[in-house]
């Protein structure tokens, strides 16, 4: 079997990726494999899949001349090609077009994981409040009213702090 990359040497390194029950294979000669260590070690099949999906999404939605990102200057064409953001502002610039694709590849469209203390700001507090409210529910079910009262006070003061911060 010949190398997928150069088509000259015999392929000696074989990499298999399985995603959603679909198999993809790469066969490389030792030289090309050395050059392509990123391919061998990164989740490249997912990235390829993403740019394919991105292209599909673009081809099915009418083309709108998109203006580039105000911070890094990346255009939608460029984003479509690289499949990567150029800076933290790109996400806002491309969000309307991005969301269906994100939903498609990730299966979700809302972050439910860790929220950083500072950058998360108010959201972090809101998430903490949600957690406390759940705790409160279970405490009430177990009839631990003293703890429940303390929790309720804590939640109230956190909520009023958020309101103050809004003003």
């Amino acid at each position, binding site marked *: 079997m010949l190398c997928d990359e150069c088509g000259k040497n015999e392929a000696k390194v*074989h990499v*298999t990726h*399985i995603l959603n029950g679909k198999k993809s294979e790469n066969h490389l000669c030792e030289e090309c494999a050395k050059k392509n260590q*990123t391919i061998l070690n990164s989740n490249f099949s997912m990235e390829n899949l*993403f740019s394919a999906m991105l292209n599909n999404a673009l081809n099915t939605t009418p083309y709108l001349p998109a203006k580039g990102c105000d911070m890094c200057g990346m255009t939608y064409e460029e984003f479509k090609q690289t499949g990567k953001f150029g800076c933290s502002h790109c996400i806002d610039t491309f969000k309307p077009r*991005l969301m269906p694709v994100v939903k498609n590849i*990730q299966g979700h469209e809302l972050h439910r*994981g860790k929220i950083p203390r500072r950058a998360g700001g108010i959201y972090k507090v809101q998430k903490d409040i949600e957690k406390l409210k759940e705790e409160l529910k279970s405490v009430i079910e177990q009839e631990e009213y003293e703890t429940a009262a303390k929790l309720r006070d804590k939640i109230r003061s956190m909520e009023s702090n958020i309101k103050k911060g809004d003003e």
Partner: protein
Amino acid sequence: MENNGIVLTSRIRLARNLKNYKFPLKMDLEESNKVVEEVKNAVDRQNLNYKITYMRDLSEVEKNVMVEKHLISPALAEKKETGAFLLSGDEKVSIMLNEEDHIRIQTLGTGMSLKECWEISNKIDDVLEGEVDYAFDRELGYVTACPTNIGTGMRASVMVHLPALSITNQIEKLLIGISQLGVAVRGVYGEGTKSMGHLYQISNQGTLGASEETLIDKISQIVAQIVEKEERMRAHLKKNNLYEIEDDCYRAYGLLTNARRMPTEEAMKLLSLLKLGKEMEIIDKAKDKDIYRLMVKIQPNNILSSTDTELTGKERDKMRAEIIRNELLEN
């Protein structure tokens, strides 16, 4: 989970970016230096025991060694001018700078240790976040350069050794099945799903919409199921095919300790059989040898980096055979 040699390593990687700098794809040299400086200062202020290394100060060979030791990614090694990494004193945590994202916190552990790796990564992530401004989006979570990492920015992966399932041709069906559960499976260095050395990497496919703990639990449960299947197959082989498997393992040992020429693919297959035989207690050779470490040591890049002279393929196979004989036969 008990460490039975089936689960080899665990790894947690968190991708993070700074809000006020362009991402590595778009940044210039000056900006990349500022990112390195900012993160380095943050770590220094906290008096953490980390040592910084700049890619531009390393030779090709030195970089390869770092990659083979899994301390940095191959993609970071490519960032000759802009890349750097902070390595913890115990070499468990590596904070890679200016790879695809500004920051990639990687924590390595042995056996099934995803939870411990997450705790360590989470802590250092908190420390950094207290000092630098992360890019974070209310809906999409941590903003990463590639949308496949968005949300938690977390990739949890486990490397497993599945020889019994492989030699009995059960592996393909199993791997295709589990890949439908939102898990990515990668057979490294192997043709088809018959990965070289029967080594597989299992990691979470999605990074958005679930908490880090949920993603880790899911991977852990799937790995536990795979381990159970491998163990059951080993028990089945021992009961029904002892004579054949014993013969396979002793043949592997015979070749490994006598051959004068050893291509990577053959070496990986034989070492995998030897490892299986040791763990099934059907071969009493190479008793205290770490076979997985030897598997890493004989990879083409590793052999190249162990010598200064250029090697032809033939010379490399000869050297590989020598390394294996020495390792297995020395006391």
